[in-house]
């Protein structure tokens, strides 16, 4: 029977990534001065779980790193060692290394073995601070005690063979020896036993014929290496284990003296620490003799198939100590929600969304056909159609909600970014996050992370001043960067704001002139700020490795725009900067109002519509050079005539004969002049760009119920264009 472990890799990778993220979050909120035991336990458990999985699936490099991490963490949570901030740094670094190893196993990127070794060393050093303390308290170090034993004893102890059992205490060590006697003949075994008896008292031996495992207990004053040497001549060293042990359970000891089979269960490494060289090869399972429903003991006790693993001789490896004391505490961490959730691949969800999209189109088509039938005669048809519409809408909403994820998935990475960067730049920065539970589409979550990281780094590097400068400016030494997310209309707004130096208008203008951009002093602040989105624009006085090369803001803007979003800057010199990103909630579906101009149908996103009206002739004015405006409730709004923009032949050209749809976007209003309103629809957005090409003023297209294509208006662009015209 063989199980292909590879099928579980993917879930292990996902699980580990999540655990690493959890671990990092816990580490970042850990207060070095009064660490929360819950957090320490949670961090420990994360490392522990990753180690377990990595071991099972054979990712040894990860096992090693997590092991070191676990060792130190275990000491911390047991209070054997004080938490220090250098440890947090080391943990974070270790987390990064494991992350790298993980992606390397995933086939993405390269692991860096040197970094892994370095961090293992670092963790080892940190955790050994505790060892030193411990050893001072109780000097039970194996090496230390063997050093006291004079070598001469090896030769002189022939009489030990006859030594009575009650003298056993005279020996300083007790070793459990296991080896495979495969390929060793009886004479050799006998010789071996004689040799061992020279070293001390050979207590008992059993030979499991079935598994060809020979088990001995040797009580001796010699060190492990001597025992090893005695055995290694005869026995295959890779199938040999020697474990130093003391018997802890005195009652059991007297009862079962000499029966290693049972003693084995109660053997404990001298200082509570079992060496890896033994743990790696000793029994990997067993049963407790008196336990309920334990199988017949004698033959089942230990089967040692792990012997084929290379064993490590003697004391060379004692650094990799496994702590046997761990996991004794009851861990009460916040309960996992896993029990009530399932994992589904994104492709499946996407496929479902696509299908629902098609269903919506079909439903719309049916609705349109059905509307031609007399509602009195076909009453049932109509009520059925209404029900279908409701159900389709509900279905669509719930399917869409599957893709929605809280923005905390993105926000959670920034405490680390800020922490690292702040210490690098020696600035004091506090990161606040607001509205972490705001949900947005998963695809947006993934794509927003990079631009947002860039903005946060920029804020920290260019925005927040050094503590000295801040104090001089009368501000608290610690700067604040706030990440805020909230819904507004059909959009999600993500803001990155800081209370730093703010943008310097003069410097930006000077830089723009230097770069030959066309600027003038009469530009509004908004226009000046938008200059920093020009490629290669940087006003940083010194280029740091953090930011300042001017690569980025243009890329950020492009990324946001490609998501159908918009980016705005507000800044007051000396007070701070706020950059807000406005994104559509989802990229797939849109509530729209369909309007006609001539024989063309357009969809206006409902979120931007405040009202629709038929204006009176007296409300319409023509301002010379600025086109038409309409007075709506005392406000003059520019009129956007769609037929002019798209060069269509409309049914009506006089504004008062048609319909005005009042749009509001980016704080500006405009009136969209169309022939007629058709109805409200939920439309599935199809990219015009990928099917045709980008068209100014159009954000996408959709297929209507009758199979015709309708274009979706880019309302924001239209409104802004009308504002510019008017300005």
């Amino acid at each position: 029977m063989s199980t292909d472990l590879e099928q579980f890799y993917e879930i292990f990778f996902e699980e580990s990534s999540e655990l690493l993220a959890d671990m990092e979050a816990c580490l970042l909120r850990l207060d070095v001065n009064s660490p929360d035991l819950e957090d320490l336990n949670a961090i420990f458990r994360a490392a522990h779980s990753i180690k377990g999985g990595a071991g099972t699936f054979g990712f040894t490099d990860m096992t090693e790193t997590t092991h070191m991490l676990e060792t130190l963490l275990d000491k911390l949570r047991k209070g054997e060692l004080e938490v220090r901030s250098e440890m947090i740094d080391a943990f974070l670094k270790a987390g990064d290394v494991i992350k790298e190893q993980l992606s390397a196993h995933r086939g993405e990127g390269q692991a860096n073995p040197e970094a892994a070794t370095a961090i293992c060393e670092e963790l080892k050093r940190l955790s050994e601070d505790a060892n030193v303390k411990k050893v001072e308290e109780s000097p039970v170090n194996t090496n230390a005690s063997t050093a006291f034993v004079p070598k001469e004893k090896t030769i002189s102890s022939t009489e030990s063979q006859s030594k009575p059992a009650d003298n056993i205490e005279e020996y300083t060590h007790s070793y459990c020896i296991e080896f495979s006697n495969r390929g060793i003949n009886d004479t050799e075994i006998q010789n071996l036993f004689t040799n061992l008896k020279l070293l001390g008292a050979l207590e008992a031996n059993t030979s499991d014929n079935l598994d060809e495992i020979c088990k001995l207990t040797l009580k001796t004053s010699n060190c492990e290496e001597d025992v090893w040497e005695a055995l290694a001549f005869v026995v295959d060293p890779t199938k040999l284990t020697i474990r130093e042990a003391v018997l802890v359970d005195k009652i059991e000891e007297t009862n079962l003296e000499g029966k290693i089979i049972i003693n084995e269960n109660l053997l404990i490494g001298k200082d509570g620490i079992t060496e890896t060289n033994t743990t790696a090869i000793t029994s990997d399972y067993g049963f407790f003799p008196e336990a309920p429903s334990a199988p017949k003991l004698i033959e089942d006790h230990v089967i040692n198939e792990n012997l084929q693993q290379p064993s490590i001789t003697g004391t060379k490896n004692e650094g990799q100590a496994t702590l046997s004391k761990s996991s004794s505490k009851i861990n009460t961490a916040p309960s996992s929600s896993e029990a009530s959730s399932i994992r589904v691949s994104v492709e499946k969800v996407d496929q479902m969304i696509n299908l629902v999209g098609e269903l919506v189109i079909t439903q719309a088509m049916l609705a349109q056909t059905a509307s031609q039938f007399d509602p009195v005669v076909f009453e049932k048809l109509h009520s059925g159609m209404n029900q279908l519409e409701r159900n389709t809408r509900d279905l669509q909403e719930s399917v869409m909600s599957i893709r929605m994820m809280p923005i905390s998935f993105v926000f959670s990475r920034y405490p680390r970014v800020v922490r690292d960067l702040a210490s690098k730049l020696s600035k004091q920065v506090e990161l606040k996050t607001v509205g972490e539970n705001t949900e947005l589409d998963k695809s947006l979550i993934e794509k927003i992370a990079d631009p947002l990281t860039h903005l946060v780094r920029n804020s920290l590097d260019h925005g927040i001043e050094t503590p000295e400068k801040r104090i001089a400016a009368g501000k608290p030494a610690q700067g604040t960067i706030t990440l805020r997310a909230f819904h507004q209309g059909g959009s999600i707004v993500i803001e990155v704001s800081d209370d730093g130096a703010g943008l310097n208008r003069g410097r930006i203008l000077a830089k723009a002139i230097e770069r030959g951009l066309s600027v003038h002093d009469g530009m509004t602040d908004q226009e000046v700020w938008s200059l920093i989105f020009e490629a290669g624009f940087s006003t940083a006085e010194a280029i740091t490795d953090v930011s300042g090369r001017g690569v980025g803001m243009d890329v950020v803007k492009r990324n946001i725009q490609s998501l159908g979003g918009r980016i705005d800057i507000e800044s007051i010199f000396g007070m701070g900067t706020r950059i807000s990103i406005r994104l559509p909630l989802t990229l797939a579906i849109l509530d729209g109002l369909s309007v006609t101009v001539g024989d063309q149908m357009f969809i206006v996103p409902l979120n931007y519509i405040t009202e629709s009206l038929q204006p009176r002739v007296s409300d319409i004015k023509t301002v010379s050079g600025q086109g038409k405006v309409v007075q709506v409730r005392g406000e003059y709004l520019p009129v956007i005539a769609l037929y002019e923009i798209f060069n269509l032949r409309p049914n009506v050209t006089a504004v008062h004969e048609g319909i005005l749809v009042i749009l509001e976007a980016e704080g500006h209003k405009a009136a969209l002049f169309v022939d007629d309103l058709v109805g409200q629809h939920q439309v599935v957005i199809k990219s015009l760009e990928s099917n045709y090409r980008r068209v100014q003023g159009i954000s996408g297209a959709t297929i209507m119920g009758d199979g015709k294509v309708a274009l979706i208006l880019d309302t924001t662009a239209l409104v802004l264009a009308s504002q510019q015209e008017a300005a």
Partner: protein
Amino acid sequence: MAKTILAVDDSASIRQMVSFTLKNAGYEVIEAVDGQDALDKANVHAVNLVLTDINMPRMDGLKLLELLRNLSHYKTIPILMLTTESGDEIKAKGRAAGATGWLVKPFDPKRLLEVIKKVIG
């Protein structure tokens, strides 16, 4: 009738692996994500063997062992603990809590089956 095994582990990957292996070998498997979940499930399902991890959130394996042994119908059901530490302290603790035996993680599926077969056939 197929025998039922309650597999308890907070790690989804290990749980899946265990479950897959056991199901392939013809056992019924009930999965639980931690001690508390396992206890709840143990109360409503008839189980022939419990396989539990030790280090878990909410309720660890040792506590689970203890509580299970307090239930009349779990007095004699074999309970195996899966542990990352092969140290003896943990074994002693498991034994005190009423474990039938232990299996050291990482283990390979073959080994798991071998142990289970020894206990419940």
